[in-house]
Structures are given as C-alpha cells and as structure tokens.
C-alpha cells in the first residue's frame, strides 16, 4: 500500500543511485569501491523500486529467469576472463600475457576493469534475487 509520494520519490531517485553504482564499478581500479560495492548499490536501487511499487511488477520487469541468467553470465565472464591468460600461455589471471596490440600495463588495466564489470553484474543480480526470493510468498 505505497503512496504516490513514495512511488514518485523512488522513481526519481533510482536512476541517480544506479548512476552512482556504475561510477563506483567503472572507477573501481583507481578509487575506493569496485565491482562488489557498485553491484550492491545497483542491486539496492532495484530493491528500492520493488519496495515502492509491488513485487509483482518487479517480477514482471526482471523475472527470476532473467536474474539467474545475469548472475550466471557475470560469474562465467569473471572466470572466462581469468582463463583467457591461461589460454595465452600464462598463469590464471596474469593478464599481461594476453596478445592485444597494447602495452602490457594497459592490457592489465583493461582486463581488471572488465572483471570489475562482470562482478558488478553478478552481484547486482544476486542481491536483487536474494531480496525478491525472500519477500515473495511461499505457500
């Protein structure tokens, strides 16, 4: 039974929270924060929307299958990027050896950024799934 005030406030606030979460994820390698913290912030904005509207509309917008798919995609990307350097002949998550037309330091920075984004997607789907699964009725 949420009022129009709560719904409007949440709707206006949510994009800014998500933008801040994306900022935390993308600036992870050079400033405090990273994939986990940013993912939790984006997931919390989804929880805010689910709280201010109702659970049914949140389920309709991002259903269980979509969230599980994003969750699995994030963790698979995380492991897959780590395995790229193994394929290139190095050790797990030693990105400098990946053959790209860039200096080794830049390849490392790029891969760390990509891994942060993968963790962000994974944690975002995980946190919202945790909330929605606990909140819905199991009868």
């Amino acid at each position: 039974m949420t009022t129009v005030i709560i719904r409007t406030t949440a709707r206006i606030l949510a994009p800014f929270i998500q933008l801040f979460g994306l900022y935390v994820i993308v600036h992870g390698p050079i400033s405090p924060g990273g994939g986990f913290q940013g993912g939790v912030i984006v997931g919390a904005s989804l929880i805010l929307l689910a709280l201010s509207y109702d659970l049914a509309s949140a389920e309709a917008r991002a259903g269980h299958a979509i969230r599980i798919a994003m969750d699995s995609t994030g963790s698979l990307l995380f492991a897959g990027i780590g395995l790229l350097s193994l394929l290139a002949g190095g050790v797990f998550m030693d990105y400098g050896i990946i053959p790209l037309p860039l200096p080794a330091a830049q390849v490392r920075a790029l891969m760390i950024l990509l891994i942060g984004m993968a963790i962000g997607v994974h944690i975002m789907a995980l946190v919202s799934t945790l909330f929605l699964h606990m909140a819905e009725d199991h009868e």
Partner: protein
Amino acid sequence: MGIAEFLLMSLLVVLAVAAVFMRDLLAATVVFMVYSLLMAIVFTQLKAPDVALTEAAVGAGVTTLLFVIAIAKTDRREEDV
C-alpha cells in the same frame, strides 16, 4: 585520540549493547542499521574507504532489508521465556 573519535566509539558501544537488549526486533534492526552507518564513518577515519563503502552498502542497506523481511514473516516481539 580526539574528542570526536571518543564520542563516536562510545556511541558505537552504546548502540551495540542497545541492539542486543532491545525487546522490539524491528527497533533492534534500526539500531543495528545506525550502528553500521557509524561503523562506516569509523572505517573512513581509519583510512579504509573501501571497507567503509561496503559497510554502508551491505551493512546498512541490504542486511537491514533482509532483517525486516525476516521479521515481517515471523514475530516482531520477543516473547518472555
């Protein structure tokens, strides 16, 4: 240790004890959320902004919501034993 840090630490101890002894579980959850927020400030003071961001997002945000859902599905008051 400055006076501000001393006040912050004292308030943390008071809030932690209050969260344990509160009979109303919803009030205990809110007190615990305030404890998490103050803990985030303490982590920032200790030059650990990474931990502070995690504490503010997870401790104050998501954990509180999960506690509130758990209370909504069970009883709000603790019964006298």
